[in-house]
């Protein structure tokens, strides 16, 4: 018996969560968040064995939480079930690696050219499919070595940039762009020496690893926060985790949990931070005049919606001259990080994304803009339309002289 919160009691069985769940919508056999969350949790507290493979199919998108009229912690209850779920050996081994993208990243950036080449070979992918049940249908993102330089600026507010695994190991240049953007907007950014935020660990049911990640990251960032610096993320999943997940996984350690709460209170999504600069007149809006009109479509990642910050990227990009941007609001992309790479989950992942793919086709944009790397992968995979991070759009919109003369 564990000492538990009572949010379970809030469930009035209305099924709002089931109507919002993208997996229920796409996969008629899925029991739904109402069952996997509060209903089975009640049974688990009874001591009944409730383990089911279905908990693996939860995307962790948090749409159930946002749909619930009664503040039931639906996705957290399912996450707890994931943590005690027993997997067959192959999946266990595969998901062990998926729970550690930081480790994977470090290994694959030792000799990235070799790694990328191998991961692109069909026989290798078929082998991975047979042995590890990793779907051969998808391209792996390329791994790259790169340093993100952040020269100490004399002026500008100190801000700590949490890069996350994708930027660190797959697109360090994006990290450089983030730094540039921050410098252009009155900040003096530092790259945090942190590891994986732990979202993939939680998603893969590895609570112990998530705990380790949270602890390490909290200890690494607390000094900056205590000295008044804010933390900024460019990946919405990292942002969501830092804002809500650290304190949750560290609840067994009150001191760490307290630090995690202070860190959360100081953490901002990049667009959220830029919007707050705009509030005090410090947002750099020196945009070049429009050469031509561009039609863009914005897809808000699920972990962005769950942060409750409005639509800051959409709001910012709208201000760029010549940009016509549509907020797609067309559901979850279905990728959910490592989820879409799993062979047995691939069909569900693609079924979930259908609504978004259709929305993109109907919108017919030049590019789709979204701040989540795996959303980008899924969109390109499902529609063939290019997907880019809003940082790049914003940065490229500035006048050339603005970009090259950054404040030091």
């Amino acid at each position, binding site marked *: 018996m564990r000492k538990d919160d009572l949010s379970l009691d809030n469930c009035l*069985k*209305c*099924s*709002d969560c*089931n*109507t919002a769940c993208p997996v*229920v*919508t*796409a996969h*008629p*056999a899925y*029991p739904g968040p109402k069952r996997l969350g509060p209903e089975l949790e009640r049974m688990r507290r009874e001591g009944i064995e409730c383990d089911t493979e279905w908990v693996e199919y939860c995307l962790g998108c948090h749409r159930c*939480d*946002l*749909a*619930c*009229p*009664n*503040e039931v912690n639906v996705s957290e209850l399912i996450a707890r079930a994931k943590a005690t779920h027993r997997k067959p050996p192959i999946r266990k081994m595969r998901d062990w690696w998926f729970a550690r993208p930081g480790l994977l990243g470090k290994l694959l950036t030792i000799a990235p050219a070799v790694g990328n080449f191998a991961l692109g070979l069909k026989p290798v992918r078929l082998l991975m499919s047979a042995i590890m049940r990793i779907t051969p249908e998808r391209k792996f993102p390329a791994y790259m070595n790169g340093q993100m330089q952040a020269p100490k600026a004399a002026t500008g507010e100190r801000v700590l940039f949490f890069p996350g695994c994708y930027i660190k190991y797959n697109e360090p240049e994006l990290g450089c762009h983030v730094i540039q953007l921050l410098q252009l907007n009155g900040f003096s950014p530092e790259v945090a020496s942190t590891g994986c935020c732990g979202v993939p660990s939680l998603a893969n049911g590895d609570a112990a690893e998530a705990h380790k990640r949270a602890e390490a990251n909290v200890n690494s960032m607390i000094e900056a926060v205590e000295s008044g610096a804010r933390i900024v993320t460019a990946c919405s999943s990292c942002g*969501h985790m830092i*804002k*809500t997940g650290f304190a949750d996984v560290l609840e067994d350690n009150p001191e760490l949990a307290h630090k995690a709460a202070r860190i*959360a*209170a100081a*953490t901002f999504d990049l667009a959220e931070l830029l*919007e707050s600069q*705009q*509030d*005090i*007149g410090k947002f750099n809006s020196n945009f070049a005049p429009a050469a031509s009109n561009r039609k863009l479509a914005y897809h808000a990642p699920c972990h962005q*919606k*769950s*942060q*409750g*910050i*409005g*639509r800051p990227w959409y*709001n910012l990009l709208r201000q760029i001259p010549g940009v016509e941007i549509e907020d797609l*609001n067309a559901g979850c992309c279905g990728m959910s990080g490592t989820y879409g790479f799993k062979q047995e989950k691939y069909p569900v992942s693609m079924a979930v994304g*259908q*609504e978004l793919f259709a929305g993109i086709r109907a919108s017919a944009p030049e590019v789709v803009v979204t701040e989540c790397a795996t959303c980008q992968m899924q969109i390109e995979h499902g529609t063939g339309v290019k997907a880019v991070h809003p940082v790049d759009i914003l940065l490229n919109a500035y006048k050339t002289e603005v970009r090259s003369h950054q404040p030091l």
Partner: protein
Amino acid sequence: MRNVRNHFDLIVAGAGIAGITSAAAAASRGLKVALVSTGPGSFVLGAGCVEVQNTDQGLHLLDESMNFFRNLTTLAGCSFRGGIDEIRYVPTILGSFQTVSFAPFSIWNGAPEAAAQVAVVGFKGLSSFDANFVAERLAYHAAKLGKGSTYIAREIELSREEDTVAGTLQFGNRFDRDLSFRQELLAALKPIAAKASLIIMPGIFGLKSGQDKIEALESELGCLLCELPTLPPSIPGMRLFNRLEAYLRCSGVEFFTGFPIQKLEIENAHFTGVLLDAPARPLRLTADSVVLATGPFSSKLLGTSSFSVNSDLRPMESSGALIAGNLYAAGAILRNSSARGGNAMAILTGYASGMLAAGVGVQYAQR
């Protein structure tokens, strides 16, 4: 410094029927509206049917507000039928009839006067609906009402993969996404439609589809369709909600979904903004006025367990002073109606509050 980006002309709190109507009314007058909500209110329970007979307040606005709402549903592709003087009997899953003045067209069709030969159709494997039961009871109740319709029960089987749940939610989702499902449905209903002028079936016509899909089905079948909301989630109800929400979004209403209101900022009887309970820090939205349409258990937002409203739908302290001059209340938070009369009150007060916030001189109650 004023938070311009998250500043609105009006914040409507609550996305039930009252809140949606309020936001729509204000938006129709050009206001920049933010709709803040957790959950879709009672849309998940019923289908939005409206019964005006029990309404005893705001009657002079009834026609105007119901017209507005009807218009809204048509624009959103889920139109209602009816009139304030109409009394129409629509079926329930208990096989009884309830009187309504307005209902979504797909339910309006189900009245006994609509047709003489009625087929009640169930789906094999759907445990929340039994055509035999409903048909028998409808026949009984129709006879009691003096209507001569005959009701026969039929069952169709729709293909399903093994292990899939046969629920209205699952069928509803497939209706939205899967053309072959709709074609299969059509084919299964055709022989039944040949011998009936109305088919009554559990509501599965999608959670997002427009009424054109239902009308297309009707036209291909050559007979009317009536969908019954079964146990929650009510598919017709959720469809109504989703369509209205989508329409409002297109009209420029900005939605903030899933974050409860932590606090109403009121100073010197003037409302300035709301704090939403978001991760890491509350999200602050400011507005020139606010409509509280947050349902029956939300009086505590006003710091009291009960309150009354003046003729402008503005809540008052027990002394009679306004809690805030720019704060209105609408819908079930007013708790002065039964469950069904509730929708009429919700639309009335929703419309009135939206218009009042827009500075349009409607008076809700004549006192």
